């Protein structure tokens, strides 16, 4: 009895105490934890009633008259706005180790509709102005009455820009659609709403969610499951506007998209609201040094509409059996093999104007190291290597930025990206990416989408940017990197530890050059260890067996 009591006292009681502490004590609570409830967002309303202003009662014959009316009161806003990238479609930005450039649609080609030069008639429907840019110079007509105030400040939802390709005799180059009541819109202006920004940014690349993958019409009306910030439906929907994060002052909007920007500046970041200590767990907050918030909190994108993940221009300009062009034809099958990799659950479309396009919904991001800076394959840059895909906007960063020792100025973090892949035209003689002329209405205008002639299209397009064209069109594999920032999932759906800390199927399996607990191991060491353990087990088994035998013999 005493013996049992002693065992309980010496062994069991300490066990209970120690293991109760070990399994309940949370030593991981971050004392600097900043909870969500401390974040406050206010939505201001315009302090005046624009419908009472006499100048807005006057019947506007042209949209420029409406702008003139706006600027008659907001008399400094015109000059202010014309300095912004939304007007200029370019901005001064530094590419590390290359220098300062005007970067924007002026000199950047993508792997969607490639570039705006020579296609301004169509592309300008997303310019916040009226009329075309001056060909070859890409400087918008410097008349401040050409600013399109209403596309951003329309609060009625009735203002749309004309799509000149949708029919003959439609207003072109950024003008409002036929039948727009300019007075009604002007009398009901206010701060931009989601649909104002979305009218361009949701439909980049030619349709809903085609380009970004994380910006789509569904965000106008969604639950937290699709986007915790922009949700307007359901419980705890914060219904944020774009400017709540993309803070705006004097028409300068924060936010840097690295397909048209390169320096680590002017970014709209999570930490502005959430701080860098948003988790109760210090262990999770420590991940902030090497993992972008987005990596765990955007486990999947294109949750509403499918996004385009592959665009193969090389198959364009094929006609059907009757010699007629094919428009938007869904191809059978839901798997697509590109560059040796099989993409499942995809939708494949063929269009004689565009070639083959592959769309996918609920896409899993890919992951890259990124230190906040990017390079660009600018218009006129020579292609040096055709054996591997040309990356149009290589993101800088690697694990090495974080060691030897960690440089706090340019930390590299693991980011989720949409990688857009495709084949696009290039000049194999001059080794230049080709700016084709795509959009046009008139046959014989050399526009690809009318004439279906690559050489003519390339010649016209390259002429418009002042670059040589050899007369040969080839196709080169390209990739562009779209860092994901939107469609943040509710906390409960964010990636869990084992998604990455996992030997078999780590999401970060493609990122090498560093040791990651749970993912990495030395096979040699593990196998040696296992063999060692097995040998020891075998040794004691044999030894024990022999002892049993020898005991029997003795008896």
């Amino acid at each position, binding site marked *: 009895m005493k013996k049992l009591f002693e065992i309980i006292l010496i062994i069991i009681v300490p066990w209970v105490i120690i293991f109760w502490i*070990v399994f309940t004590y949370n030593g991981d609570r971050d004392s600097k934890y900043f909870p969500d409830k401390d974040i406050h967002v206010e939505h201001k309303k315009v302090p005046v009633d624009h419908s009472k202003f006499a100048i807005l009662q006057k019947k506007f014959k042209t949209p420029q008259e409406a702008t003139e009316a706006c600027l008659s009161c907001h008399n400094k806003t015109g000059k202010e706005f014309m300095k912004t990238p939304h007007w200029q479609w370019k901005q001064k930005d530094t590419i590390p180790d290359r220098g300062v450039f005007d970067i924007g649609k002026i000199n950047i080609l993508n792997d969607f509709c490639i570039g705006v030069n020579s296609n301004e008639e169509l592309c300008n429907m997303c310019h916040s102005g009226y009329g075309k840019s001056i060909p070859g110079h890409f400087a918008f007509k410097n008349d401040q009455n050409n600013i399109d105030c209403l596309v951003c400040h329309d609060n009625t939802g009735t203002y749309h820009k004309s799509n000149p390709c949708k029919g003959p005799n439609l207003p072109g180059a950024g003008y409002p659609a036929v039948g727009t009541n300019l007075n009604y819109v002007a009398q009901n202006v206010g701060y931009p709403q989601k649909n104002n920004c979305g009218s361009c940014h949701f439909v980049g690349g030619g349709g809903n969610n085609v380009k970004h993958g994380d910006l789509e019409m569904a965000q106008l009306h969604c639950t937290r499951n699709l986007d915790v910030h922009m949700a307007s439906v359901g419980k705890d929907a914060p219904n944020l506007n774009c400017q709540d994060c993309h803070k705006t002052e004097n028409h300068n909007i924060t936010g840097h998209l690295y397909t048209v920007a390169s320096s680590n500046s002017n970014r709209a970041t999570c930490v502005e609201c959430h701080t860098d200590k948003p988790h109760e767990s210090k262990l999770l907050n420590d991940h902030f040094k090497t993992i972008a918030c987005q990596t765990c909190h955007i486990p999947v994108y294109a949750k509403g509409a499918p996004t385009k993940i592959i665009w193969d221009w090389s198959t364009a300009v094929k006609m059907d059996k009757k010699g007629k062009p094919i428009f938007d034809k869904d191809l059978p099958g839901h798997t697509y093999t590109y560059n040796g990799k099989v993409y499942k659950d995809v939708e494949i479309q063929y269009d004689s104007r565009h070639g083959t396009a592959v769309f996918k919904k609920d896409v899993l991001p890919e992951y890259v190291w990124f230190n906040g800076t990017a390079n660009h394959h600018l218009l006129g840059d020579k292609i040096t290597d055709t054996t591997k895909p040309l990356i149009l906007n290589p993101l800088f960063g690697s694990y090495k930025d974080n060691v030897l020792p960690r440089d706090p100025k340019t930390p590299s973090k693991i980011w989720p990206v949409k990688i857009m892949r495709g084949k696009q035209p290039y000049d194999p003689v001059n080794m230049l990416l080709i700016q084709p002329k795509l959009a046009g209405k008139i046959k014989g205008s050399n526009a690809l989408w009318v004439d279906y002639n690559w050489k003519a299209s390339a010649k016209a397009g390259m002429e418009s940017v002042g670059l040589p064209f050899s007369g040969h069109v080839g196709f080169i594999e390209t990739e562009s990197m779209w860092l994901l920032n939107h469609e943040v999932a509710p906390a409960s759906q964010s990636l869990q530890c084992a998604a990455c800390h996992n030997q078999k199927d780590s999401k970060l399996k493609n990122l090498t050059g560093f040791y990651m607990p749970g993912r990495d191991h030395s096979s040699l060491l593990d196998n040696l260890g296992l063999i060692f353990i097995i040998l020891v087990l075998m040794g004691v088994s044999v*030894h024990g067996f022999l002892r049993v035998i020898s005991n029997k013999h003795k008896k």
Partner: protein
Amino acid sequence: MKRVLIYKKYERFWHWTQAALILLLALTGFEVHGTYHLFGYQNAVLFHRNLAWAFIILIVFTQFWNFTSGEWKQYIPSKKLLKAQIEYYITGIFRHAPHPTRKTVYNKFNPLQRLTYLGLRVLILPVVVLSGLFYLYFDYLINHGYFHNLDIIAYFHVAGAFLLLAFIIGHIYLTTTGLHPLSAIKAMLTGWEEMSDEDAEIALQENMKVALVESRKGISGKGSIEKDHVFEKAFEEVVGNLGIDTESAKLRERLINSNVGYFRINKDGYYEEVNDAWLKLYKCTNRDKVIGSHVTYDRTPEGKKQIMKLVNKVLSGEMITGERVERVCKDGTIGYHTVSATPYKDKDGNIAGLEGFIIDITPQVEAEKALEKKISSHQKNNDFYKFVSSSDDIGYFRIDKDGFYQEVNDAWLKLYKYDSKDEIIGKHYSLSRTKDDFIKLEKSVKKVLNGETIPFGITRRYCKDGSVGYHTITMTPVYENNKIVGFEGFIVDKTDTKIAEEEIKKSQV
């Protein structure tokens, strides 16, 4: 079959806590490594951290315990019988040969265990703990640019984990090689190990043998001039030989016949056996009167309390070594001795009583008390001089500040084997020391000349005839007009302990 006390309470607490910690560390650790999914990765990481801190705290406490209790000596590797132990596991165990070594409370580990546990302590555990700390604070290492190869840290940690795991498998298997398959585990739980009668007898005596050495250290007092160097060595010699010598079965017999007082008391506190030396120390003549009497019989009320406390301590399963106690002799005089005792058990595993031995320290304690009195009465008490000059056991000396003998008494001359005072007075004290011992003593003398009193310490003397003896020495400064003019003190020979020591040495041959 008998049971012998092997493991102390702290040891049992520590062993089982560490066992559970290591198993849970392995379980969570290999999940963090990515080998399987069990707790969930985040839980595994957090549990592993908390377990690691608990483990580190336990290690710190245990190392502290090991050093303060002297248990660390049990990890000193010994080549002796290592081969025999290995051969036993390879062949002997199948032939039912006897274990080449025996477990005692002072020598728990066989040479193979010593080597393994030492390796565990100085190699594997430090590697695992240090690599674990580097792993935990890897961010700090990176930020300060010290180190950035987490893979190397992780490989060390994982390799250590495999080795620990292998150790545990072997360790658990080897627990089955005791008297019965579960004997060793039972012993680790209860502290008492089942052994065959023969083994138990030997183990018990070995426990006592070491207790004797410990006891001898107790006699030497706490402050020691040579830091117990001589006896430390003797102790290590004994420990090194422990569990080896089957001859030592006769130790108890020798103890009983020696000048060391031997006694055995049953669990109710009545004497069952005492030897002649015991009777002599207590100045009793009739053995029959003592046997059957209670241990508290004829003691002062304070002495009763003290002795019962010790008896109860031993009866509860602990061991005492070198406790100083006061005794009231048959003739009413008061004496002092150290007592060492160990419990013994009957066949059913219940404690049946205790046995042990006493070593007289009366002259020493009396001299100590006289000196204390002298010091506390500011040099004016002459009782000390009266006491030492009249004593046959205590050698008195006075040396001037330059190190020359001014006065010695007859007992001193006897111990140093001089014929008359003239041979030594006026001579330097280095004459009575070997060269090495002189250098050691010189430091102590300097301290005394600075006003310190050095209580009992063991030192070695160099006698006239060239032989070497051992005695305790106590030194205190001599003042004249508030100036230190020299030092004086007394020495007590260690004849009684020497007898015991020689007994042990004989038994080891």
